């Protein structure tokens, strides 16, 4: 008895990712290579996700030592781990019920950890107050976003709730929005000539105007630093967005998971929360904001632990009560992830036994990022039909592809988006897995590829070698 016609229309209406085929093919190829099938390459270079461990970056020793000691407290009595690691593990375990990471925590997370997150935020934002009561730890930032959207999206209203999201945009967010029955209202980021991507407020106005007929725009989602666009908003730009949200009565959803991924020389991350606080009344006490952060990105890159938090600002207390119930219902966030979050907020300090190694490892990761971005941009910009905007932050590059008409025609013949066609061939022929721009949304007639740049150096070089020779051949074949 088929129930296909009877499943949730919201789920049915969400567009499956075009990349499903690409990802499935990549798993097949990886499996074939494991079984010893001969191809032009021995391994697939997988830079599809923003997952640095996956590309070969080593986890931070301090973080993993503390996690190991928390999981298996016998280690606290051994001489295998540095003293500060043992102390940290001990004090974290004291904050878990009966000293076990296997116990549930409060719905918002271990209270002491939540408290330290608020201290971290306050310090980050130059003293703008942050309250533990407004913070919820969840299994990843996307999970928190989903919970906030559940409250924002009126499932019974007509017209439906609209959420403004950027183009290009992290696709999982759009998936979450449509899965809840809301309408995605796209606003375009501008691809400045040689200055990188930018968020321009007139694009927000335009998007809002165009949406008014079809839905009830209620929230504005921004990603800063951008994914996949790699831009960092200046203070002034954030002010303009806040003003816009205030004027148009929009709830701000600020995805700030890449706040620690900054590689532009003079770039600085400023949080929406900070700018909002600095703007003073009436903005600072009215504009509603949810800001998201995570352990998956940045220096730590612990995607697999599934941990993030949301801080809520200016949310109505009566609504907060229901948000609290939603998080309670989910049980608690994974405790190891909560601990990782705590370590991210409070890394070893100079003078601690673990500090020298920690410092060395993090410095190495950061310098590699900066080199990677510089080197990859240079190489890509030297290739015909390829152009990479300068980026300042985030984990990705999003170079534009100027595909020859013959390639576009061929793609249409095989029923693929042109940049998807490029990615499929890149995978098959060169064993490099990147994602096509069509996955993120793009202006009609433009094409891109996105890939993660937080890789070790040797992977970067191998990636560039394969990409270059593939690209040159591709352009020749379709010229």
């Amino acid at each position, binding site marked *: 008895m088929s129930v296909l016609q009877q499943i949730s229309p919201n789920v049915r209406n969400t567009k499956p990712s075009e990349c499903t085929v690409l990802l499935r093919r990549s798993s097949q190829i990886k499996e074939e290579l494991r079984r010893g099938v001969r191809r032009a390459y021995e391994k697939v270079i997988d830079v599809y996700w923003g997952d640095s*461990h996956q590309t070969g970056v080593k986890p931070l020793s301090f973080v993993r030592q503390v996690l190991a000691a928390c999981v298996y407290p016998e280690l606290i009595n051994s001489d*295998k781990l540095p003293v500060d690691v043992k102390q940290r593990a001990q004090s974290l375990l004291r904050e878990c019920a009966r000293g076990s990471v296997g116990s549930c925590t409060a719905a918002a997370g271990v209270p002491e950890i939540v408290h330290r997150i608020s201290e971290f935020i306050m310090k980050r934002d130059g003293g703008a107050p942050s309250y533990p009561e407004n913070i919820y730890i969840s299994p990843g930032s996307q999970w928190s976003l989903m919970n906030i959207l559940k409250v924002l999206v009126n499932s019974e209203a007509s017209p439906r709730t609209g959420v403004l999201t950027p183009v290009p945009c992290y696709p999982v967010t759009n998936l979450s929005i449509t899965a809840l029955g809301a309408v995605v209202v796209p606003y375009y980021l501008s691809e400045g000539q040689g200055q990188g991507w930018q968020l321009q407020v007139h694009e927000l106005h335009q998007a809002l105007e165009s949406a008014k007929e079809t839905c009830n725009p209620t929230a504005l989602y921004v990603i800063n630093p951008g994914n996949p666009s790699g831009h960092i908003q200046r203070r002034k730009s954030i002010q303009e967005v806040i003003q816009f949200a205030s004027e148009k009565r929009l709830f701000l959803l600020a995805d700030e998971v890449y706040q620690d991924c900054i590689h532009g020389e003079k770039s600085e991350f400023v949080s929406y929360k900070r700018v909002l606080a600095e703007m003073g009344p009436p903005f600072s006490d009215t504009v509603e904001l949810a800001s998201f952060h995570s352990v998956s990105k940045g220096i730590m890159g612990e995607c697999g632990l599934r941990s993030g938090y949301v801080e809520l600002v200016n949310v109505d207390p009566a*609504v907060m009560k229901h948000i609290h119930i939603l998080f309670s219902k989910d049980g608690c966030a994974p405790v190891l992830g909560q601990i990782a979050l705590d370590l991210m907020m409070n890394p070893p300090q100079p003078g601690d036994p673990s500090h020298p190694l920690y410092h060395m490892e993090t410095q190495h990761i950061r310098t590699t990022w900066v080199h990677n971005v510089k080197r990859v941009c240079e190489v890509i910009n030297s290739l015909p039909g390829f152009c990479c905007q300068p980026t300042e932050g985030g984990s990705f590059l999003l170079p534009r592809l100027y595909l020859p008409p013959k390639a576009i025609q061929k793609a249409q013949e095989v029923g693929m988006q042109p940049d998807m066609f490029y990615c499929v061939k890149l995978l098959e022929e060169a064993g490099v897995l990147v994602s096509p721009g069509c996955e993120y949304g793009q202006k009609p007639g433009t094409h891109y590829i996105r890939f993660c740049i937080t890789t070790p150096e040797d992977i970067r070089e191998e990636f560039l070698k394969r990409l270059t020779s593939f690209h040159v051949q591709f352009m020749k074949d379709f010229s």
Partner: protein
Amino acid sequence: MSALRMQMISPRTVRFLSRGRSEFLAGSNGAQRSGGGPSVRALTSPPLSYSITRRSLSSLSGTRRGLPKEKMSENGVVPRAKVLTIDTMNPTVKNVEYAVRGPIVARAVELERELSEGMKKPFVEVIKANIGDAHAMGQQPITFFRQVLALCSYPELLNDSAFPEDAKSRAYYILQSCGGNSMGSYSPSQGIDSVREDVAHYIERRDGGVPCDPDNIYLTTGASDGIMTMLKLLVCGEGANRTGVMISIPQYPLYSATLAELGAVQINYYLNEDKCWSLDISELQRALDEARHYCNPRALCIINPGNPTGQVQSRQCIEDVIQFAEKERLFLLADEVYQDNVYADGCQFHSFKKVLYEMGPEYSNTVELASFHSTSKCYMGECGFRGGYMEIINMDDDVKAQLTKLVSVRLCAPVPGQALMDLVVNPPQPGEPSYNSFIKERTATLSALAEKAKLTEEILNTVQGIHCNPVQGAMYSFPRITIPEKAIKEATDNGQLPDMFYCMKMLEETGICLVPGSGFGQKDGTYHFRMTILPPIDKLRILLSKVKEFHQKFTWQYS
């Protein structure tokens, strides 16, 4: 049997219940709730003035909190109305209640704080017997599991001779299946392939060789993630066509909360308390027939062993339920997270999957089933890892594609939880270095639980006015309590449900934190509480005698 006599957990009841909560969430007093209009709370003002910990408030100076308001009055600016208010928020979310972490628990946390501040109470510690959190009650983790997880966390330890060889080889095996050999990498949304294969082998062994396809296994963030995902997938239609989902009463409130959130219709079927909380097919039929008038019943949820009721379903009963589901075209959701928690003599866990296959192709090829398991219960009790899986059987291929799309929204289940699930389904084998200690630890935990289940039933049944069915399985007792008329009146006058009133008083006087039966649903006019059997046996004895003493005093006081 008339449904009118029974108490339905309707949205209205839920809203009524939620009134109790506002006492503890001082930020949500009546004025603000009914107003729904502009609020003057500022960026710097916390929405909930109750504090989760002492520390959370102590760091905030009064000046800093007040500052923005002063500024605002100077400017004389009238703030704009909020975008998100109680009137504009998603109406279905308003109906969500979750008793297991409800107002009683909030008060328990507050009491703990007051005790730590040196305030005098009639008790010296708060005992949280409200939640099935074994480690928080002192249950020890399985050493082998923790060793492997520590090795996976910090693989440098693979060179350490202090770890047994089988733990090392297991850690190596798990890391080989992780991207970049790190638990910090995303896994596929459905879960790590090798873990799903191991889960499939486990299910085959458990079910006496019934085949299991790893493609049907989805690793989840605890079982509740799987349950919520399946319900989300199933719910559709409008008006009389809206999806109805049958759940047992009493039930685990995750079900009612999720159905409320999804705007689905909750169809209650009552377990038979007089027959040890057993499930009667005639009652299923009654509930279904009545529900068909106002909704489209499409799914039937079963919790076996039962939560909060602790019954273990017989093989015959499961067969009857499957027949019923087949006849009535219902999708079966079998919550089997307590499958290793079976204590009573003559009781045995039978999985729905196994019974389904034994019933022959007429059933095994058609009846759609989702079965859930988790790392949080049984002898592991590792709630903090949020590991779990679901197995999907006979699901339409196209729907499965939709399901796979839906789970991709949360990227993947926590990898340490997936690793732990792998260890649970594939524990040390005879002859391996860790085998003996593993068996010893597992047996100790399970036999202690069995002893505590028995003790709980015995002691509670010595109290006049308390009746406790045998705790055949799971981790809870759900005794029926007699509440005197006078107490019921006082509770009603205070706008409280009588069992909430009872549990709150119990908490205030004894420090014991229980969940009132109304949070799970119960027959109209009956009252219960849920208590875990998890505290260490000495403590459990004290706890039970305190409950006994309280009940006697309470009864005397109100008669």
